[in-house]
Structure formats: structure tokens, C-alpha cells
């Protein structure tokens, strides 16, 4: 825990009350947490940070990958390292996966609706980064359905000048008081699988891995000729004309496809390096011959994932 004494010049350049990001906290939650401990209205910290960067438009996409947000200013005002603030977004991960310096939020998803876990808010005033992942509708920790509408019927908004932090701007209800609906077991299993894809890309994602994933998806579609039923959440709805290209290149869409095609992160690793010939069938290749060089090759590639898990 860092401590600033009044004689330290940082005293004058930091907010009156400091907060530091919790594990897996989303920058939106951090900003609201900062508003709350400082007794400010919802969005005061965000507005202050945006004022420091005139080009910034306050939109939800800014908070997923805050390319226009003055993260340095926020880090300075909270007296924490810049990296800690970046870790409250998916900026670093998307930059690595797509090989770009300033990734756009569209690389994760083309649409976003704000939702939250009332239990996380009640326990820690916490909004996790997981909330922004496409197709994730359940809190992985509490296994309750994420909420996007208040009891008064108003769609939840992360910031509103008339509201207090973590409260509905219309009726003032604390988000911690929102209903907690237990998630369906089948859906929990699906989302665990989806989260494992995301986790794979956050850990191993590079432009090469992304390219091999796209090759694998393409070959699987061609060879299988069928996919699972689409996921029933907003992100699976048809997009307006002209957005299809952005949609097909987003990570959320790719993860959706991997689930539909029943492919695993191990399959992606099998496809990541050259194969004797290109076919999705290598992901299910088996051979009874002892010391089959192909089995050894595929096993070695899958082992990378297992070894990494063991290390962690």
C-alpha cells in the first residue's frame, strides 16, 4: 500500500482520496469507485480525465479500450503505475492479439450494453472486466445473471451526472439491491467454455495465433458443413449493413465461432504451426501405430497449453 505524505509533491497532484484497481477490475468500476470514495457524483472522475484530453469522446467503447482516454493522467491522479490502469482495460491484450498500437473497441465487439453483477457490487463495489466480453451474461464468480435494467425499468448507465456512483440515475436504487437471478446450469457451462477461449487469447494471443484460428475456423466450416445453434444473446443478432466486416474480425465473433464449431484452444495450437497438409481433421487425428510421428507432433503442440497451466 503506497502512502503519500503531505510534504510529497504528489500530494497536490493526486485526488483527495485514492483508490487502486482490484483484481480484474474494469476501468469503469475504478472510475465509479474513485467517485464514491471522494464523495463525488457519478462520472466526475471520468469528466475530469476527459477534460485533460479534448479529443476524447465519452462513450462506452472508450472504456473498453480507452485509446482516447488520458490514462496517464488517471494513473498520476491516483498515484499508481500506468500499467495498473491499463490492466483495467483490454487495451494491452487486444494490442498484442491484433498487432496494433492503439486497438479499437470494435476489435472486441461491435456492440455493447452495460450490465453488472449485483453481488459483486454489494460485496466490493466491483465491476469486473469480464462484463465487457461479448456473449458473457453470467457472473463467473457468483453464477448469477448479469443485470442491465433497473427495477424501475430504466436501462442501467455506468455514468450519469444526476446520479450517485453505483446507483440508478432514474430511481436512485443502489445497484447492489438489484435482483440476483441464479443462472441456468447449461448456460453456465457454455460461458465457462467461452471464458476459456477468451483466457486463451489473453494469454497466448498474437497476430499469428489469430491467423491460425481464422484458418482453423474456415477449414472447419468447409469440412464439417454444420455449426451449433447460435448463442441467444444480443451480440448474436444480425448487424446492420456495412458492419459485417468489423463483426467478423472481432474477437467476440471469433470466440462465438469457436464455440459453435466445438473447437478448443488446443485445436488452435495444433493449427498454429505447419501441418503435413491443411485440414481441420488434424484436430481429431488419432493413430494406433506406436510412435506415430504425427501423434507425437500434435501432442507436443497441445502440451504447450498444459505446461503453461501447470506453471500458473
Amino acid at each position, binding site marked *: 500500500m503506497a502512502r*503519500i505524505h503531505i510534504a510529497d509533491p504528489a500530494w497536490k497532484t493526486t485526488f483527495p482520496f485514492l483508490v487502486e484497481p482490484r483484481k480484474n477490475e474494469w476501468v469503469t468500476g475504478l472510475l465509479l469507485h474513485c467517485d464514491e470514495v471522494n464523495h463525488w457524483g457519478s462520472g466526475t472522475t471520468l469528466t475530469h480525465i476527459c477534460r485533460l484530453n479534448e479529443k476524447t469522446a465519452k462513450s462506452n467503447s472508450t472504456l473498453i479500450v480507452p485509446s482516447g482516454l488520458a490514462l496517464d493522467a488517471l494513473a498520476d491522479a491516483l498515484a499508481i503505475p500506468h500499467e495498473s490502469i491499463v490492466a483495467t482495460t483490454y487495451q494491452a491484450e487486444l494490442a498484442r492479439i491484433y498487432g496494433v498500437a492503439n486497438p479499437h473497441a470494435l476489435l472486441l465487439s461491435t456492440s455493447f450494453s452495460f450490465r453488472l453483477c449485483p453481488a459483486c457490487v454489494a460485496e466490493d463495489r466491483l465491476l469486473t472486466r469480464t462484463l465487457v466480453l461479448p456473449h458473457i451474461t453470467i457472473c463467473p464468480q457468483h453464477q448469477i445473471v448479469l443485470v442491465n435494467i433497473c427495477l424501475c425499468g430504466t436501462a442501467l448507465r455506468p455514468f450519469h451526472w444526476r446520479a450517485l456512483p453505483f446507483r440508478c440515475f432514474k430511481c436512485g436504487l443502489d445497484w447492489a439491491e438489484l435482483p440476483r437471478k441464479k443462472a441456468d446450469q447449461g448456460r453456465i457451462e457454455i460461458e465457462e467454455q467461452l471464458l476459456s477461449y477468451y483466457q486463451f487469447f489473453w494469454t497466448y494471443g498474437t497476430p499469428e495465433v489469430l491467423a491460425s484460428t481464422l484458418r482453423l475456423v474456415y477449414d472447419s466450416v468447409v469440412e464439417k458443413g454444420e455449426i451449433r445453434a447460435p448463442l441467444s444473446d444480443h451480440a448474436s443478432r444480425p448487424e446492420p449493413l456495412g458492419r459485417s466486416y468489423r463483426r467478423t474480425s472481432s474477437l467476440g465473433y471469433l470466440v462465438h465461432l469457436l464455440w459453435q464449431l466445438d473447437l478448443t484452444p488446443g485445436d488452435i495450437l495444433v493449427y498454429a504451426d505447419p501441418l503435413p497438409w491443411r485440414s481441420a481433421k488434424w484436430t481429431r487425428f488419432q493413430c494406433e501405430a506406436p510412435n506415430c510421428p504425427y501423434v507425437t507432433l500434435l501432442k507436443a503442440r497441445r502440451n504447450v497449453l498444459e505446461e503453461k497451466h501447470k506453471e500458473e
Partner: protein
Amino acid sequence: MMTDGNVPAPCPPFVVHDDFLETAFELRFQGLLQQAWRQRTWHVIAALPGSGKSLGIADLTHQSNSRKDTKGATRLPLLAIRAPKNGGKDQALGTAFCTIFGIVPAMPWYVRRAWLVQAMAETGVECIIIDDAQDLNLAHLAFLKELTDNMAAPPYERIVSLCLVTAHSGKVIPLKEIFSRPDILWRQFRRRLDTERPFCVVAGHTEEEVRSILEAFETLYRDQLPDLHLLRWTRPIFTWLTHTTLDPDGTKRVTMDHLTRLVTAALRRSYEQGARDVDAATLTQTAELMILRRDELVEIAGVPSDPAFPVQEVS
């Protein structure tokens, strides 16, 4: 010091030490502030300009264990500000208070007003010190009363000490006349002042106190003037610095500003002349500059022979 080529090595520039010295004045002044802080009393505290009030407040602030930690806990038991200049409304004083907390985003004044009370209560403010309080106007004083009253009321119920530190001259104590007015506000303000010592004047240094400060100066500057022996000049220094030019009120006390100026100027001269101690002539010349020739105009003409800053040619 000579080099191999018999060229005198350039003397490093004289270093003025600006360490905080716990002088007799500071002991008296800080003692008063600390007592007010402990007992949560209100005072108007006056001292001559140049006594060391601001340094004393800054030192006390540094000792106050004010801190921010990254878990959201901030402690600010001693809140010291300088009164806003050029008048202004209550908002100017409110802004001065907010600035002490660090970065406070822009917000409407009515919101900031309420926020300030909440922030002061949560950070555990126990004592408010306002330096240069002679610059406060009626709107500022009314706001101060409102602020402290709100702190004292539920839900905070915090009684804070208030020290209005002013510079004075002669027998006139700033704010005394305002608090004597019959208006309800000023009567309420006056009622909150300490019963025993509502208005205090902290005196400067006696000859004996000057002696102990000179002793401290000897220690500070001995690395630059190895044979420095200032104590023997205590009497003449005290006499010079209580001359009517520097002590127009006839207090027969010496301010820290005058003493520091005289000593450091004389020591610098001696050092630049290559001396190991300061002599009577140098001290006398410096004292004359301060007393007899203090309003003398100095004409600056020509070009300095040795520019102190590096000059680089550009193509």
C-alpha cells in the same frame, strides 16, 4: 586553492542554507498553534512581518502526520492555507481549502461547498490555520463560520480549532476591530474565540535568543567559513537590527528575516573574498546597507563580465 598551472581554481558559489531553525519565536508560535489544536480553541495570532510565521506553519504541517494511502484513507488533521489575495467571495476561500486536498475536479460551487464539509470531516480535520489572515474579507469570515458550524453539527459533530495568523504593525491587531462590531455574525464569531487568549501577539527575538540563532548559523556555515565565530558579534547585530529603521514600532526584538538577511549577506561577501571568518567591517557594511542605504537606488548599466548562464552559439 591553486592548480598545477598556478591558475586559481574557481571558488564554488556560496550556498545559502534554508533549513528550518527551531528558534525561540518558532517555539512560542508553534507552541500556541499546538495548544489551540489540542484544545480546539479559536485565536487571532499576530506577529511582525518576516518573523517566520509561514515557515512555522509549513513545519507544523509537515509534522502533522497528514497522509493519503491508496486504500482510500486520507488523514489531514491540520489544514493550513494562505488567505486568498485580491478579496473575492466565499468561493475564493473555498477553492483555497479544496486545493489543499489535491486535485478536486470542477463542480458547481453549491456542490463543492457541501463536499468540502464532508471531506474535512472524513479526513479528520482538527485544526484550521489561515496564514495572512489580514487579507480575509467579510465574505470569507462568514464562510469560515458556516464551514466550522457545519462541521460541528450532526452528522459530523466535529469541533475544530481555528487560528487566524496575521501580520501586524504597531499596536493594531487585524480583525480585532471587525470582531468587535455589534452585528450578530461578528458577535457569534467573537463568542467562539478563546476566553483567555483570543488575540495573541508573538514577539520576535531578544538578544539572548539572537545569540542562540547565531550559534546555529555558525554550525550551518562552518563548512564554507571554517573559522566562523559569529557569537562575538551578537551585541552589535542585535543593536543594528533593533534600529528604528528595521524596528519602527520600537519592540526591541529582532525578526528572523532581518537576522538571516544580515548574516547570509555578510557571510557571502566574506566567502567571496576568500576569508575564513566574517569580520567587523563586512558586518558593518552589510548592516549599513540594510539600515542607512536600504532605499538607495542602484544603477545597473553595462554588460556583465562573466555571465552566470552558459551561452551557446547557433548556426
